């Protein structure tokens, strides 16, 4: 592999100082002169027809400057393709931003107010008179599928009768019956996971100003400023070229800050009031009205031969989409068997609408829930056959040339190396104390490619700026700077990484899909190489020789052999002369990258269970992952540790709890219990590097894979500690206690019916 000078080192991030001194500006930290404050009125009902909305009393309140309802955002039934990639349903996103005709979940925005103070706006919002006709809410997959279920959308699927099933897909290979006939052991279970939220600490926030000339400025916290621009244009019927989006620093996203919620409302209010409008969500609103990940039901059957060879799998899965179509059911289907060579399988997946918030992407969307099923069953098969769970996985693990369950053959992938690293890690053989158990599980995510643009400018002092369009959620500025440093051969602190607004950089897809270091990195490297090519030409000009004869080596232009008295010229030397050799140098590049090389991970979890209270705590944890090439290892480890922590949260405590009316009962951080520092041990990491041939340095996406293994790693550790196979998450103390109390009965391994899911 190429020797790197800067890539793989751990410099301090360029935006670090601002972030440890409180100077960095996040979504809520921006203000404009004359700014109004917005507040949203939200539906108290989970499912209701909106009979009428009377805004007169609110409009008459002191300080109120504008009130909007769904009438101010005309429904856009055109299926608008935005972002150059795929399609978002702009009708649904607009209807989600402000309801038309029907409120589809508790928290659904029904009207919004702008006033001179937040208090005035909030007081006015509650004076808006809405007459609802409450309808029976659909709160679970089982209810949504029932023959007599209330229907959320009359025309959910064109040409079909009333249904809550928005879509179905299937994947298959081989002969399922023959496969199961070959199996010596067949295990089938039904698994459930509840809705869970990304839990970013920064609530959604924006300021919008609609100018007299129709130009719009939006400052907001988002993973995709170009997506905000294009979505607002489509939802409000505006000219996207007149919208400029400035992304603030972003306080976490994990997929949840891809859709727009407040931005179209703030623009519409600003247009009506002719003043800038600031809107900030409360934590309660973030939980109730932004997109968590799907609650799921997965029924899976797995068959293996006595030697551990997996021979057949059958999976049926249902993903809650929330109020509008579009759950990650497809990815769930595609990911669940991605780690194993299984000659015969059939997978079907369904997208189901329910009266809960519309789900958004959440870190490897769809993969954790379906992989929880697979990795639990693989563990159970290993136990049944008396095989080591790593040996069993290695025996069936995919490698280069094997076909993924969704079709194509894998290129170079690192699953086997990851599993070997797990087996060789001291954690795997460390002794366990009483009431402790150990579990292991694998995880997979595709890693997205998509579109990115970058420019690299060289200054006369030999420093460089690199401009991209991806908000920096977790250290991507320093990663891009490292790549420029590597190409140009200048120290990383001589590179200034800049996140530009939508008017100042070429189109760039969202910060998401583990794509920034990979795809935007490809654009950055190409732009830096463009600078190097121009520097070679400048050197050739100075030397008065053919540019093609000049090499670029280790940050210097090197003349051909025998060029008398012409020593190599460094970037600094060439930069000092740029005025004399043709003027400033700007490198540019853009890419539309294919999906990155898939990233596999494996996690080992030690869990200690308090049999008196049912509380369990992770006492040791190791995350292992193929990163392709770790550009800045601190932040690769950070992604692995953070993803593991979120997955542990899903496994142990996190869930949306609804009452029978469909009102979320735990919309706050006290009751929606995310891991805190005292809940976790240090999270050891092992970075495996199997280079990705699609990236010049071998980079793979790393952000998403680490949330996939923890669900089963924790549940497998629970099985090891207690003898009980839990198939429904989270493993919160009441559920664990209930399981422990059934431990002596014959059916202790049987599927445990839902204890929390409203039916």
């Amino acid at each position, binding site marked *: 592999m190429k020797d790197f000078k800067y890539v793989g080192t751990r410099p301090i991030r360029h935006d670090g100082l601002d972030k440890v001194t409180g100077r960095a500006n996040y979504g809520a930290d921006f203000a404009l002169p004359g700014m109004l404050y917005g507040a949203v009125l939200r539906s108290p009902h989970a499912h209701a027809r909106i009979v009428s909305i009377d805004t007169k009393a609110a409009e008459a309140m002191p300080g109120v400057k504008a009130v909007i309802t769904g009438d101010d955002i005309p429904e856009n039934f055109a299926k608008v393709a935005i972002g150059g*990639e*795929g399609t978002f349903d702009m009708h649904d996103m607009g209807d989600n931003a402000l309801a038309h005709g029907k409120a589809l979940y508790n928290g659904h925005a029904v009207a919004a107010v702008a006033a001179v103070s937040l208090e005035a706006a909030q007081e006015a919002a509650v004076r808006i008179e809405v007459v609802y006709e409450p309808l029976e809410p659909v709160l679970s997959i089982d209810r949504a599928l029932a023959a007599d279920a209330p229907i959320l959308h009359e025309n959910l699927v064109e040409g079909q009768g009333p249904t809550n099933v928005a879509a179905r897909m299937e994947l298959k290979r081989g002969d399922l019956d023959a496969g199961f006939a070959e199996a010596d052991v067949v295990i089938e279970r039904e698994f459930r996971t509840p809705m869970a939220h990304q839990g970013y600490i920064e609530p959604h926030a924006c300021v919008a100003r609609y100018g007299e000339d129709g130009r719009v400025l939006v400052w907001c916290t988002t993973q995709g400023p170009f997506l905000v621009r294009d979505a607002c244009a489509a939802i409000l019927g505006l000219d996207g070229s007149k919208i400029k989006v400035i992304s603030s620093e972003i306080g976490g996203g994990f997929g949840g800050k891809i859709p727009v919620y407040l931005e179209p409302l703030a623009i519409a209010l600003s247009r009506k009031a002719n003043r800038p409008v600031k809107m900030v969500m409360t934590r309660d609103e973030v939980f109730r009205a932004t997109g968590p990940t799907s609650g799921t039901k997965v029924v899976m059957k797995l068959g293996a031969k006595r030697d551990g060879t997996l021979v057949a799998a059958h999976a049926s899965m249902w993903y809650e989409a929330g109020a509008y179509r579009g759950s990650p059911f*497809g990815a769930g289907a595609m990911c669940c068997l991605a780690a194993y060579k299984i000659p015969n399988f059939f997978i079907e997946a369904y997208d189901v609408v329910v009266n809960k918030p519309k789900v958004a992407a959440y870190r490897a969307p769809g993969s954790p829930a379906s992989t929880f099923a697979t990795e639990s069953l693989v563990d159970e098969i290993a136990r049944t056959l008396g095989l080591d769970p790593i040996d069993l996985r290695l025996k069936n693990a995919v490698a280069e040339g094997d076909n993924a369950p969704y079709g194509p053959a894998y290129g170079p992938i690192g699953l086997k190396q990851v599993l070997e690293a797990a087996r060789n890690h001291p954690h795997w053989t460390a002794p366990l104390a009483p009431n402790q158990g150990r579990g292991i599980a694998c995880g997979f995510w595709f890693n997205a490619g998509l579109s990115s643009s970058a420019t690299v400018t060289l200054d006369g002092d030999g420093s460089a700026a690199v401009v991209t369009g991806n908000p920096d959620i977790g250290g991507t500025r320093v990663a891009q700077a490292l790549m420029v440093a590597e190409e140009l051969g200048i120290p990383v602190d001589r590179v200034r990484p800049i996140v530009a607004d939508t008017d100042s950089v070429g189109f760039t897809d969202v910060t998401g899909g583990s794509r920034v270091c990979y795809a935007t990195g490809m654009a950055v490297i190409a732009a830096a190489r463009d600078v190097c090519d121009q520097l070679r030409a400048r050197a050739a000009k100075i030397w008065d020789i053919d540019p093609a004869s000049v090499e670029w080596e280790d940050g210097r232009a090197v003349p051909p052999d025998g060029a008398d008295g012409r020593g190599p010229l460094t970037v600094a030397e060439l930069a000092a002369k740029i005025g004399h050799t043709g003027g400033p140098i700007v490198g540019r590049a853009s890419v539309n990258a294919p*999906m990155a090389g898939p990233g596999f991970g494996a996690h080992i979890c030690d869990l200690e269970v308090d049999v008196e209270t049912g509380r369990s705590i992770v006492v040791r944890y190791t995350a292992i992952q193929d990163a392709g090439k770790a550009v800045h290892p601190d932040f690769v480890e950070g992604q692995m540790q953070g993803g593991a922590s979120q997955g542990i949260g899903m496994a142990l405590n996190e869930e949306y709890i609804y009452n029978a009316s469909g009102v979320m009962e735990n919309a706050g951080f006290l009751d929606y219990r995310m891991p805190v520092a005292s809940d976790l041990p240090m999270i050891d990491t092992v970075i495996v590097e199997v280079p990705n041939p699609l990236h010049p340095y071998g980079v793979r996406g790393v952000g998403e894979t680490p949330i996939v293994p923890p669900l089963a790693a924790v549940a497998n550790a629970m099985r090891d500690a207690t003898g009980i196979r839990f198939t429904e998450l989270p493993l919160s103390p009441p559920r664990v206690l209930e399981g422990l109390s059934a431990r002596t009965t014959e059916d202790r391994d049987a599927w445990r019916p839902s204890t929390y899911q409203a039916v």
Partner: protein
Amino acid sequence: MATVHLPSGLTQHTGGVDEIIIDAPRVRELMLALAERFPGLAGQLDRMAVAIDGDIYHDAPYHKLTPTSEVYLVPRVGGGESFDQRLSHI
């Protein structure tokens, strides 16, 4: 020319055919040929990404194909978001 593999959910539109050799210089012509051969596929193809020799592209109509190209139609999965999950009943 390329060997095209269709996901099982699409074979209802192809009379059960799940693998077909198509003589097309590029992805665009391949898609047009597929839609002509199997009219039922026409509305489905724009919802699919294409994997060409293992690499998955979301938008590559002008990507050149070779006689040995292995093409798989796969559902789109996007940048952290399931960009197009309107795979209605494929």
